[in-house]
Structure formats: structure tokens, C-alpha cells
């Protein structure tokens, strides 16, 4: 386990740990706020999957583009979307990153090239292909990272997008977050062939599968993948992970045994990484305390920011259906 550490200095390890803890605490706060009915609508949590967004996002540059799914709070935070604006969006406030018109499932942020949240399973894949096409046609060496769940692999858009990206040699990093369940449908009852990384072969796309609970392993696999993508070839990275919470806030979790969940929780990406750092002797107890305090403050500030925000005047209801003409 500590074998990765020679390549990971203390500062970097602390940054990765902090990012995962930030996502975890933010999500826990969201649960609380959902209970208090401050956040409404569908909400999907990233708890258990933090290592994936954290490890992948570390490999991207500010010029790169990111697209994700309705389960995208973690990607948004890891990408650097302002937590206050993110929280305000979930409150539905005008100060939200999408002025409260998107909500939890539709986080957008132009300043970090975060092209959403998408409520349509697999809907983001063709768009990511197009973003990469624009980069290629304009000779920009950017990467478009596209996150999606293993459920999306059953959709036609996954296959159409893999083919197009390979055919046109487009710099798309496809990141499949395989948490084994699409809502309540297990991978094994929905796919004839369950090895997702291998599906890439059919499209002549390079691929790898990685332990999505091990942030350093994800980071290393993503680094290799991004190297390929930056040379102008797509790549499929399957991150094998697990969601610890229900699919959304409305889910009795009838489809998986409690023991299975307990088993996976033993491989919690945060505890795992803390143990790795301790083994390697690069983590002190006060590090964790300090880091938790900082994150707690940040989350509290995000909540205050959201609370202090205002509702967009109803007179603005029909804005942003068409561009306000001065834009272009």
C-alpha cells in the first residue's frame, strides 16, 4: 500500500487528502440541508467515490474542460468551482453558479470550464466529444475529461461517442465511475460483458481499469491516460468504486445487502489514504485536525453564502432562454 509513496511528497498527499475530505464534509452538509429542506429536488451524493474525482482532476490544467453527471458535486469541488456558489446553486439562489436555474444535478461554471452536470444518463458524452473536436480543429492541446457512471455504458451514446472520438482522434478522457449499480440495477444484471475497460478495445481506444478507492492509484492511472489524450487520442479509464449512500435521497436500498456495503466501507478512500500516509510516516495527527478545521470553516462559509443569497426576481423567469443579443 505504501509502495506508491516514493512518488508522493507530503505536501501533495495533504492536498489530495484535503480535497477528499472537503468533498466528504460538503456532501454530509448537503444531507443535513436536504433534511432541513434547504436543498430540494433530486440530489445524488459522491460519498465513497471521492478518490476518483480527486485523483483525475489533479492531472488537468485550467484550460482543460470537464463534463460530468447529476452526481457531480465532487467533480465540481475538485475542479475548483467555488463551494459557496455551488451551495447557493443547490439552494436555488441567484448567487448560485447557474443562478439557481440548474440545482444539484446541473452545476455549470464557465470560469473553470465545467460544462455541467447532466440529468440525462450518457448525455454528456457526445458533448465532450464535440468540445474535443473544437479543440482539435483550433489546434489547442486541451483535454476534455468526461465523467459518467457504468450505467451510461448501456446507452447508445456511449458507443457512438467512443467510436467518434477514436475515428476522429479526439482528446477525450472518458472516466467511467463504476460503482456497480445504476440506481438499483447491478452491472451483472444489465451488461452481457461486465469488464468495461475492455469494451474500449472494440473501438481501438486505449483503456485501463484502476482501483477507484486508492487516490494515488487513480492519480497515476489518470496521469498516464492524460499523457495519451494530450497526444490527441481518446482514452477510457474505468475507476472501480462504490457509493456508500443511497442512489439519491429517495432510495430504500433494497437491491444490495448491508454486508456488501459494510465490506466496501472498509475500503473507504479517505481512511485508506490516511493509513497509507501514516504508514509512510508523512501524516501527523494535528495535520488531520487542522485540515478538518479548515474544511469545516469552508463548508460553513459556503452555507452562509448560500443563506445570504437572494431569490432571483420572478420578472427574470424567462431570461436565458435565448441569449441577450449584445452577447455576440
Amino acid at each position, binding site marked *: 500500500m505504501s509502495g506508491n509513496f516514493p512518488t508522493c511528497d507530503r505536501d501533495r498527499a495533504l492536498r489530495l487528502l484535503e480535497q477528499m475530505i472537503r468533498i466528504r464534509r460538503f456532501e454530509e452538509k448537503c444531507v443535513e440541508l436536504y433534511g432541513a429542506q434547504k436543498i430540494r429536488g433530486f440530489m445524488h451524493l459522491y460519498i465513497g467515490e471521492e478518490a476518483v474525482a480527486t485523483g483525475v482532476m489533479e492531472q488537468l490544467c485550467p484550460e482543460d474542460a470537464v463534463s460530468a453527471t447529476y452526481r457531480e458535486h465532487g467533480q465540481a469541488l475538485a475542479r475548483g468551482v467555488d463551494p459557496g456558489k455551488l451551495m447557493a446553486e443547490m439552494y436555488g439562489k441567484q448567487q448560485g453558479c*447557474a*443562478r439557481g436555474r*440548474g440545482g444539484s444535478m446541473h452545476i455549470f461554471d464557465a470560469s473553470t470550464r465545467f460544462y455541467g452536470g447532466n440529468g440525462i444518463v450518457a448525455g454528456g458524452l457526445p458533448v465532450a466529444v*464535440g468540445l474535443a*473536436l*473544437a479543440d482539435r480543429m483550433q489546434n489547442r492541446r486541451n483535454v476534455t475529461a468526461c465523467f459518467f457512471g457504468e450505467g451510461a455504458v448501456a446507452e447508445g451514446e456511449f458507443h*457512438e461517442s467512443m467510436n467518434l472520438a477514436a475515428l476522429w482522434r479526439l482528446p477525450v478522457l472518458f472516466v467511467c465511475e463504476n460503482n456497480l449499480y445504476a440506481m438499483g440495477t447491478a452491472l451483472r444484471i444489465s451488461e452481457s460483458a461486465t469488464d468495461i475497460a475492455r469494451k474500449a478495445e472494440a473501438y481501438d481506444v486505449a483503456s485501463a481499469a484502476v482501483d477507484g478507492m486508492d487516490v494515488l492509484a487513480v492519480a497515476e492511472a489518470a496521469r498516464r491516460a492524460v499523457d495519451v489524450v494530450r497526444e490527441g487520442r481518446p482514452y477510457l479509464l474505468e475507476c472501480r468504486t462504490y457509493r456508500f449512500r443511497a442512489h439519491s435521497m429517495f432510495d430504500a436500498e433494497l437491491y444490495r445487502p448491508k454486508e456488501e456495503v459494510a465490506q466496501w466501507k472498509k475500503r473507504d478512500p479517505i481512511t485508506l489514504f490516511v493509513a497509507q500516509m501514516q504508514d509512510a510516516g508523512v501524516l501527523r495527527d494535528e495535520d488531520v485536525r487542522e485540515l478538518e478545521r479548515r474544511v469545516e470553516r469552508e463548508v460553513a462559509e459556503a452555507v452562509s453564502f448560500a443563506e445570504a443569497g437572494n431569490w432571483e426576481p420572478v420578472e427574470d423567469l424567462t431570461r*436565458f432562454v435565448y*441569449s441577450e443579443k449584445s452577447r455576440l
Partner: protein
Amino acid sequence: MSDSAATNKTTYREAIREGLREALCSDSRVFLMGEDVGHYGGCFAVSRGLLEEFGAERVRDTPLAESAFVGAGIGAALGGMRPIVEIMTVNFSLLALDQIMNTAATLLHMSGGQFNVPIVIRMATGGGKQLAAQHSHSLEGWYAHIPGLTILTPATMEDARHMLGAALREPDPVLIFENQTLYPLEGDSPEPASNFDITRAAVRRPGRDATLVTYGAGLHKSLAAAETLAAEGVDVEVLDLRVLRPLDDATIIESIGKTHRALVVDDGWRSGGISAEIAARIMEQAFFELDAPVARLCGAEVPMPYSKHLELAALPQPETIAETVRKLVNKHG
């Protein structure tokens, strides 16, 4: 057209091709993609020759994957390009409906105004060529239901030639519906245009006794009916909507103010169709101008049949339009 204008003949198909060529020449961000737009020359031969002229990067053949290449067009638009995506016919656009409606039309709003999508999607529409129920429908009125889209229906040489350029100047998604029966239509070469309008309906034939509100293939059938009726002393105005969304209410209402009678002619289905919307707007905005209830002549409510006589019967024709107008002008409110 002015006397000095060149009176070269062209076709609707060539006019669209000229529009494409001009767009590709004048802006390096523009590219065309779709099934068989390149090596085949376009399934209706619209893009013939463009691959040779502009190369495979900018006249891009795609796999049979409507959802992916429409989505890729959206992404490319977000990334700074000005894609023109061609879908062979409106029927196949249903495989990309998710991207058109759930992404292109919603992104600007969902992102709180951050991400506009300057994409143009062209497709053939309409019946009349005995292609039966999977290649013949007129679903443009259906698309006009969707906020965030602009829906254009070129029916004249000018519109075929110039609507595309104007659409590419829009910051938001524009869908252009080319009625497939119009491709061989001949007419005078349109003059060059700047700041070409894509917001207003146009009166194509002024008249006093009734207004035919129509678009696309319906325009030509309505003009033919108007000729027949003129010989009988009935003088109808023919109004070409040009834009199905947003509808130009003002021009419609102005015409009703003059003729006091309206017949909406639409190849699309009647129930829940654009004709219902137009009738409702006339009722809402010009009820007291009307001398008779608004009439509608629409496509029959069946999947399009193959057999010629049935297909003819399923669509408004000059004869049925004329007959409906006769009844309309004899009605008194």
C-alpha cells in the same frame, strides 16, 4: 427583383448549397457535418462539391450516430466553432431529440446564462415523394414547441440562400427545415443580402378576402390555390410564416385586420399542431376582427401512406385549399 438584377435561374437546392459555400468561405469556424454530406454529396445532393472545395475536416462525413454527432456539434459550438449539422431527414432527428431538446435548447438556461450554443441544424422534412411513414413527416411544428430553439422554414429562393448565414449569426440553436419537395424548385437567383431578416413573416401575395397562413411546401400550394381563386374573383392574401418559433404574431394579426378571415394551411398533423397555436393566437389577439371562425387545413392524422393517391389525400392540395377558402368566404360571422 429590380430590373437591373441578374435574372440567372437557380434551384432551391443550389441556393442552399450557395448559402453553405458562402458560410464556409466567410468564417473559418464554420464546418458542415452529417451523414453522407461529403463523399456522397448529401443525400439530397445539397452539399455536392463542397468536400472537394473545403476538404474533409470542414465537410465531415459522420457515422450513423445522430445523437453523437448532434451532441458533438453542440460541444463544438461550446468550444468556439460554428457547426452546421445536417440530419438527413426530420424522422432521423428523433434519434438526436435528446441532444436537441435536453442539451441544445436548455443549456443556456440551465447554466444561468453562461453557456450559449451557437449551432445550426439543417434537415429535410415533409411528404409528397411516396416515402411512406418513416421518411415523410412534417415535425417542424413540433420542434416549435421547444423554448430555446429558433425554427426556420425556408420556402423561397431568397430564404434558401440567405437564412443559413443569418442563422449562423445567432448565438443560440437554430433548426432549419428544408421541405424535400422544394429542392428541385426553380427560380431567379437571389440577390446578395446583408442583415438578412429571420424574425418576420412575409406576405407573398397581397389580397383582401382571406389570409392563407402557411409555410414551407404549403406556401407554393397556397399560391397555386390563390391563382385559381383569383380567376373566380376571390382575392386571397398568402402569408409565409418563415419562422415557426418565435412566431411573428404582428404580421399575422395585421393581415387579419385587413382580410378578417384566416385559413391555416399546414402539412403537419392538426391535433396539438402549429396550426392550433396560430388559430389560438388569432383568437386571442384579433377575435373581434374575425368575420368567420379561423379555419385549418392540415395533414390527415395518419402515418403517411405510401400509395400516391393516399399520400395526396393526406396532405393539403391546391384544390382542397381553394375549396376550403370558398367555404370560408361564404361564411358570415
